[in-house]
């Protein structure tokens, strides 16, 4: 492919842009690589007062464990501190949140996209305000009723709360997606005698998957990354991964516990890497969906 005429740049500009970009890539990637490497060392190497190069060479790791790499941090976090239980909880929460919010969101988003009335617009506006509110402000409203009704601490409570917090964003995204599906499609099905729901079921559902997958990715990220809701609403045995990591930090006095946190941080980041690797295109298109259309 030949470069377009307008794309040609003077060499100095090209050089400056490329240098800047390389710098940014180092800034973006280095922290992850550093932490990944360091998670296989002992605390004395990863946090070395004497010499930072020890985190790379790891002399203490060698003398304490006999090998250049140690799985001590992972072993301690996953088995000794039962991080696997938190991982399991996260999996349950994330799967449920994504499924429920997509079901609710597709129905609602479709209705909002097809309704010509003013109240649909008002609903979207209210959803925008809800979307802007910090989740932790809502948490202070949940605590008292949840204590009284004995709902506090259970996974289903956190799931339904996360679904609700997710709804405004899901509605916005899916509404704008459904608006791009031509009205004629479902309306002609209705002329042929389908009810509105049948038209949705047989005509819209088969063509909606690209938008639903993109929205689902962002619902996944919201549920997976949440700290405010899961930290305040789940009891200790139902904790998900992110509050669990935060609780490692509270007890860093005992030696080695920091490395538990480091290794669990790496464990939490790994699935996200895989996610970006496979769904990069969808994430990019989802981020720009609202923007480029204006």
């Amino acid at each position, binding site marked *: 492919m030949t470069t377009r005429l307008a794309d040609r740049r003077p060499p100095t500009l090209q050089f400056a842009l490329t240098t800047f970009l390389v710098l940014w890539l180092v800034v973006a990637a280095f922290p992850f690589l550093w932490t990944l490497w360091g998670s296989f060392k002992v605390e004395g190497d990863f946090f070395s007062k004497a010499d930072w190069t020890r985190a790379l060479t790891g002399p203490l790791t060698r003398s304490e464990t006999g090998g250049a790499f140690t799985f001590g941090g992972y072993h301690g976090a996953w088995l000794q501190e039962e991080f696997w239980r938190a991982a399991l909880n996260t999996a349950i929460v994330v799967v449920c949140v994504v499924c429920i919010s997509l079901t609710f969101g597709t*129905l609602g988003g479709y209705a909002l996209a097809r309704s010509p009335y*003013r109240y649909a617009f008002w609903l979207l506006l209210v959803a925008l305000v809800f979307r802007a509110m910090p989740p932790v402000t809502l948490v202070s409203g949940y605590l008292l009723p949840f204590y009284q009704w004995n709902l506090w601490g259970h996974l289903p409570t956190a799931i339904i709360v996360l679904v609700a917090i997710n709804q405004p964003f899901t509605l916005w995204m899916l509404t704008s997606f459904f608006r791009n599906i031509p009205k004629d499609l479902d309306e002609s099905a209705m002329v042929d005698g389908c009810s509105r729901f049948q038209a949705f079921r047989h005509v819209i559902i088969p063509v909606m998957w690209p938008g639903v997958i993109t929205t689902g990715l962002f619902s996944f990220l919201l549920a997976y990354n949440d700290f405010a809701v899961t930290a305040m609403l789940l009891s200790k045995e139902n904790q998900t991964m992110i509050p669990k990591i935060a609780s490692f930090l509270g007890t860093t006095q005992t030696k080695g516990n920091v490395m538990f946190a480091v290794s669990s941080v790496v464990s939490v980041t790994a699935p996200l890497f895989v996610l970006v690797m496979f769904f990069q295109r969808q994430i990019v298109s989802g981020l720009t969906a609202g*923007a480029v259309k204006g």
Partner: protein
Amino acid sequence: MKHRTFLWFILPSATAMLLFIALPIVSVLIQSVYAPHPQVIREVENCNVFGCTTSTAVDQEATRALREAEPMGRFVGTGIYTDRNHLAARELGPLWSVSAGLGDFLGKLLNLPFYGALAFTLTYTAVVTPMAIILGFLIALGVNALPRAFRGPTIFVSLLPMIVTPLVGALILFWMVDARGVLGAAIQAMAGNPDLSIKASTPLMWAMIMVYGIWSTSPFAFVVYYAGLQTVPQDTLESAMIDGASRWERIRYVVIPHLVPLTTFMALIKIMDNFRVFEPIVSFNAGAHAQSLSYFIYSDLGGETRLLSSAAATSVLTIAGVILLLSPVLVRTWQSFGKGAA
């Protein structure tokens, strides 16, 4: 779409939002005007051969009875909003009169917890939003200048700081700038002060949290601008070239007008997100140096004594702040809808 069908379609979503967003807001509002009952204190008179002494004791039974009779607590109206931990209505006057000038007054004002949190939140939003947008724009220009084969991997790496869990991303940076971490050591060497610790200094802590904010939000700006640059009208650019427009003129009159609406959109989203800044303060364990509004609520809710009323009052003030920030957008959306319907 008929009203009835619309209702059925929207019902699950609307119920979820009503129950878990709208009602909690009402619950927060109610909580914020009630304070917990104080313990009932009873005076007990102890008489013995040397005479009588009075002492005070907590009347457990009466306290429990009172708490059961009015589980919400006692009604205090705006009492919690005006107390020292929030708007500090009574403290402001005296504070002004003992201050040497406006600067001194502001300095003292920031020591009040609510105003401190508000100041940090607003500073964070005001610094991080434009910086992240500028950085994201530069990255987008750089990626746009790359050969196509390199673009995919570059975008992959650039997305990472944004995708990674905020608490985790902030922790990763925090460990690196720890006095015993690699960046911490580098900063100490550059400053020539081996005892320099970011944890101990308020300005450094603020700066660090903002650096994290820029690091984690610029990928979003990058992606939006990158997509925008792909849709710059090439015909307009080339006809501008034929008309003799210089590179700068082409950028000024074709590219930038194309990107302005994107910038507005992005600034809106980022202001909303930055206003909620919360996780990095937990990760950096920075509560002593920097509190945001969200963190202020979180620290009231956590701990042994759950200060629900105080947290509720801060929540109401925060929600008011969010609506205030959003009001220009809301008004504009409302107006543009009015035009569309007419």
